[in-house]
């Protein structure tokens, strides 16, 4: 693109060219890709095979960390929502929407991998276990966020609505996180952390001991770092850049149309 001194074109140039990828993002991307490779190696090769479940148990190294990745992304939506309501600065709204999209993708990975695991272990792709039901509600809640958001024309009204919705929607994440520890009728295993009621472990199926298979804790720790932190942050950053670019293009469009 030739550079001219024309006002409109100088407005377009920053939209495209000022978005050169920051060094930190390049480094983070490289670290994340390497991390994903290491995580896969740890989960598929380093960790031992679960004797009772066989190879499918290895899906756990993606299944659980991807939920925590979704937790981080949806957490960013809450932060963005609160910050927007306080400051009315649109950049926080862009963070919120980026968080929903990334969180939704990671939550779908969590749900799909869980379903695939359940087929040989629970002998069904799906059942209405409390954890599965709450996760499905969580995903539908965030999918509705994207749809409803796109249905509001007024930008200010859209941002305000999305901020409040994004904050309230996080309750579905917390419920999904804690439900296996409080509901006695769940068959979903609790692998890490305290169980709030003894009764909640009564009906568990497909449980396994972390120490019973070699390398589980190590593989899980590394994958938690990658899927629960590096990957959501990297994806959030890219998605945020996209939202920033969309905002600038919209501003440019308005400018061009007004001339």
């Amino acid at each position, binding site marked *: 693109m030739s550079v001219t001194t*024309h006002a409109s074109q100088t407005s377009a*140039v920053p939209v495209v060219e000022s978005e050169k990828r920051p060094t930190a993002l390049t480094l983070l991307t490289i670290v994340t890709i390497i991390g994903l490779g290491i995580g896969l190696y740890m989960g598929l090769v380093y960790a031992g095979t679960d004797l009772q479940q066989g*190879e499918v148990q290895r899906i756990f190294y993606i299944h659980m960390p991807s939920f925590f990745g979704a937790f981080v992304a949806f957490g960013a939506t809450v932060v963005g929502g609160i910050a927007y309501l306080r400051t009315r600065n649109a950049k926080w709204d862009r963070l919120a929407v980026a968080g929903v999209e990334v969180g939704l993708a990671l939550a779908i990975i969590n749900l799909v991998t869980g379903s695939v695991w359940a087929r040989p*272990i629970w002998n069904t792709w799906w059942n209405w276990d409390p954890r599965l039901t709450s996760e499905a509600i969580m995903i539908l809640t965030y999918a509705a966020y994207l749809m409803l958001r796109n249905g509001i024309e007024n930008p200010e009204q859209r941002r305000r609505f999305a901020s409040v919705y994004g904050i309230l929607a996080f309750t579905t994440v917390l419920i999904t996180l804690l439900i296996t520890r409080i509901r006695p009728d769940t068959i979903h295993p609790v692998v890490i952390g305290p169980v709030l009621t003894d009764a909640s472990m009564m009906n568990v199926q497909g449980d396994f001991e972390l120490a019973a298979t070699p390398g589980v804790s*190590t593989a899980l720790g*590394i994958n938690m770092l990658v899927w629960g932190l590096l990957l959501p942050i990297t*994806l959030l950053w890219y998605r945020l850049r996209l939202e920033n670019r969309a905002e600038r*293009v919209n501003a440019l469009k308005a400018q*061009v149309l007004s001339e």
Partner: protein
Amino acid sequence: MQKLTSPTRRWAAAIVLMLLALPGPLLAQETLGPSAFYNSRDGFHILIPDGWENRSTEAYAHFHHAEAAVDVYAITRPLRTGQDDALAAAFAALPIEQPAAPAEARTVNLVNGEWMQQISIDPPRRTTLYTQPFAENLHVIVWDSPTGSAQPAIVPGEEVEAGLEAALAALGLSEAEAVSLDEMTIGAQTWTVASFEDEPAAALARVRSALTYAVVVLEPVESIEALPLFFMQLSDYFVTPQTAPFLYLGLAATALVLLVLVGSIALRARALKQEALTLAALAQEDQAAGSQNPSMP
């Protein structure tokens, strides 16, 4: 690379810290206690009973009870040309000879499926053999008593006395008559211990799911409670299921979702870039038209 700005430096430092944290979990290896199971290479796992010496090799499981002079072997062999061949292959791998033709054979339906029980009596040797075809393998569990000191049997019987009588008959001891019956707690289970005037020395029996599990002790044994633990091997044995295709399916689904997200971000970014360039070109055209026609508003 562009010059590292202050926020960039902070990000780089955070990434370096994350990288430094990566070996942490690697160094903090979990210490594994001894396994309660013997795990064969082909995914056949059986419980190691307390009070039995584990003499297992890579090829088969072997537990020895020194006082009772009893050996228990567990092995699995592929079912290529039939059960008889698989059984012969199992005994070819074991350090004992295949027992004589069974005096009694029956199918017993346990919690983990149907087993064929074969009781062989070849004085002084007494052997009880359990076999189960599973997927493409034959699982074999052998109770071998070279001196005939003790032998187990599983027989139909919902009442312990009747079941014990049937077990004694199956083991060729139909004339034996219990003089007293006592109860003994072994682990969480209650077993009935029968005493006899002459032979056998004692018998332990327990009813479960319309079956009587019995171990008849022909020579006095002090730690008699270790003998019925053999049945735990039968009921707690398991085979690792072949679930690798589901792992591959899960990985493929994960890759697909990530690909859709990353691809969608990339495509949308490209479309926006294109849109920005088009807008710039439009603006340029407008400007050119405006400069040629200055009277236009």
